[in-house]
């Protein structure tokens, strides 16, 4: 029996993903977003979260999945990793569950169209569902964004 992990479960393009609870500051409904010019397309802009300005990115866009219009279930998950604070737009956020860290396997090369380096692993749940655990440090890696930018130019 490994460590117990509390995980927020959210949906993105038909898959279930998980982020450790201690990395999540809050989950918000969609709110007005101010566009910031000259940023990568997946950066949707900034929001006013109770007096603090926080950048918001579309996770679909970040992973190269087709972006869709926001729906009623869309949420912004505010995560905090190291000293970065960023909001993720996801299709839905609906659950908090406990998982056993022993049951997280290292990820296959590509899961749901997402490169392995963005993933921490895949957790098998009791009801045989699969939960994809994100590697937030890589998702928020700025170096890579800058490289991407240069490719586009």
């Amino acid at each position: 029996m490994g460590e117990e992990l509390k995980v927020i479960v959210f949906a993105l393009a038909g898959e279930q993903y998980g982020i450790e609870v201690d990395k999540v500051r809050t989950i918000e409904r969609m709110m007005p977003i101010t566009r910031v010019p000259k940023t990568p397309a997946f950066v949707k802009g900034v929001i006013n979260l109770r007096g603090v300005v926080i950048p918001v990115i579309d996770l679909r866009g970040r992973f190269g999945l087709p972006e869709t219009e926001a729906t009623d279930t869309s949420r912004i998950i505010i995560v905090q990793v190291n000293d970065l604070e960023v909001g993720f737009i996801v299709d839905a956020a609906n659950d908090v569950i406990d998982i056993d860290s022993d049951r997280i396997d290292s990820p296959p090369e590509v899961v749901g169209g997402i490169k392995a380096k963005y993933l921490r692993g895949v957790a098998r749940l009791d009801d045989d569902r699969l939960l994809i655990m994100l590697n937030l440090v890589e998702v928020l890696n700025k170096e890579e964004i800058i490289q991407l930018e240069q490719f586009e130019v």
Partner: protein
Amino acid sequence: MDMNAYLSMFIDESNDHLQALNENLLRLENSPDDLTIVQDIFRSAHTLKGMSATMGFEDLAHLTHEMENVLDLVRNGKLSMDSFIFDTLFKGLDALESMVKDIVGGGTGKLDVTELVGQLKKIVSGEHTAGAEAAASAAPQAQPSGEAVLDQYQYSVLQQSIGTGHRVYRTIVTIRKDCVLKSARAYMVFNVLEQAGEVVKSQPSVQDIEQEKFDNSFTVFLISQWTADDLKKQIAGISEIEAVEVTELDAEALNALSRPSQPSEPERKADKPQAAGPAGQAGQGEKRPPAAGGAVAKTIRVDIERLDVLMNLFSELLIDRVRLEQLASEIRSAELTETVEHMSRISADLQNIVLKLRMVPVETVFNRFPRMVRDLAKSLNKKVDLVITGAETELDRTVIDEIGDPLVHLLRNSVDHGIEPADKRLEAGKPETGTVHLRAFHSGNNVFIEIEDDGGGIRRDKVLATAVKRGIITEEQGKAMTDEEVYMLIFAPGFSTAEQVSDISGRGVGLDVVRSKINSLGGSVTVRSELGKGTVFSIQLPLTLSIISAMLLKLGSEKYAIPLSSIMETTIIKRSQIHNIHGNAMIEFRGAIIPVVSLAELVDSPDYDDKREEECEAIIIRKGDKWAAVLVDDFIGQSDIVLKPLGKYLSGYSVISGATILGDGQVALIIDPNAMIR
């Protein structure tokens, strides 16, 4: 009780005292005969010793104690300062500073001070110079005795006063044993005494009295015009005073109180009164600031974090204020409008106060420079005077924290590369000692800091040659450049003009770091130079970083803010006025041709295009001596906005310098004016 609770206070105060020691030693080096400075130094050292002993930092206390011994001899006229003593004291200070730094870093403040202590002891015993026999013989007597006796200087001041018809009193004040705040009562007594005349000596020292380091009574020597009875009545009028004893002293009594003069003393006596005497009593007052009254400043220390919290709360309030103003103008209820207007006025006052709380005089940065320049000049074998003006100019704390390193760099640069060696200066017909001016002053919403040297100036040809060699520009480009543009090349990355890479400023990382730091603070740096005459570096900094006045404007569905400080005026431009020159849109404005910038293009506006408009609102912005007209959709108005960072994730995108939250809760982006002028 836990000592940690006092640690931060100890560190703060130690730093203050170390700084005071540093400054006063430098002052003393310039006028070694001024004993009042020695008194100040002695007091600082004494307090430092007491504090560090209490806190259990023994090495610190030990070293301070030895320094104090030396100073004690000096202030009693038993020893005259020479360069060896100065150097040893400065070394001692450095050691003290490093110990305090160690304590700040969580260490124990331990340091091997035996060598320094040995040197100081040698000074005390007079062994450091051959011809200091007199001092050696005087040393054993230097220990302060318990009796309130006068030293030579005080004696002569008192004697002079009697000679000029003033009265001299010895006042012994006893405070009641059950008094809770002895020092406060003592302070009130000193207030009375200072009204009455001039306090020449107090036993125990004023410093000790302030810190309640006295039993129940203290003795004060006073020069006054009052009668003994008046004096007694006034002091006895203060509550919790048990007894006052006022004795008028004549010349003979004075003589008895002063120590028997030593063989070497008459000479001293002869010139000291001359220095103090003609100035008379009024002059004395200026020279020796009323110790008790002056030293008790009514300030409190506040954790900077609390100020930050206050600032944040206030900015929330400001956002709500703007929202309220909007609502009031929509609802049009007279009562509501009146209340909101009143609140606006109050919050404007509050804003001033909150911002002022964060303002710190640049002195806190400047005060370490005299010492730095002294050491630097010594190590380079140059003679340099640093003249500081406007040290009281205030700047936002955030700026203060960041501006130190760039200034160090520029000063080092001026001393190292600017000021020529003494022989070259004499050859050029300049005074041997070079002068570096460090100036700070307000101008509009900006603070300027200038560093001016009277050195050799920047050599255009040399700068150009280096820039071409380093591949920063081509030779053709160089020929077309103005002098100012050439001088600015020294701020280019990877540029260093010093022929010799010296330890001091020729590391090649140089001035480009300075410029980027200053730019990141929202400021700019320029350089003027005249060959053979000198160089001036001028730094322009915003007064504050947290709340700025800005012009809010609309661009289709989006709102942006531009800092008012860079806006010169607003105007309307017709399409037909815009000319195309070499593919650049330009207009004629007040006799000059300036570029036209489309804000819509700059921010890739999704729903506004100025090309569709026949007439465009425009703002004229200025950066340095460059101007530009920026086309916008519509003006919303001028407003105080609270600067919010965009978040680390988005840092480095250059068009936007920050964000602010509008009254409706929406985020508006602040355009970086620098991005519009290239």
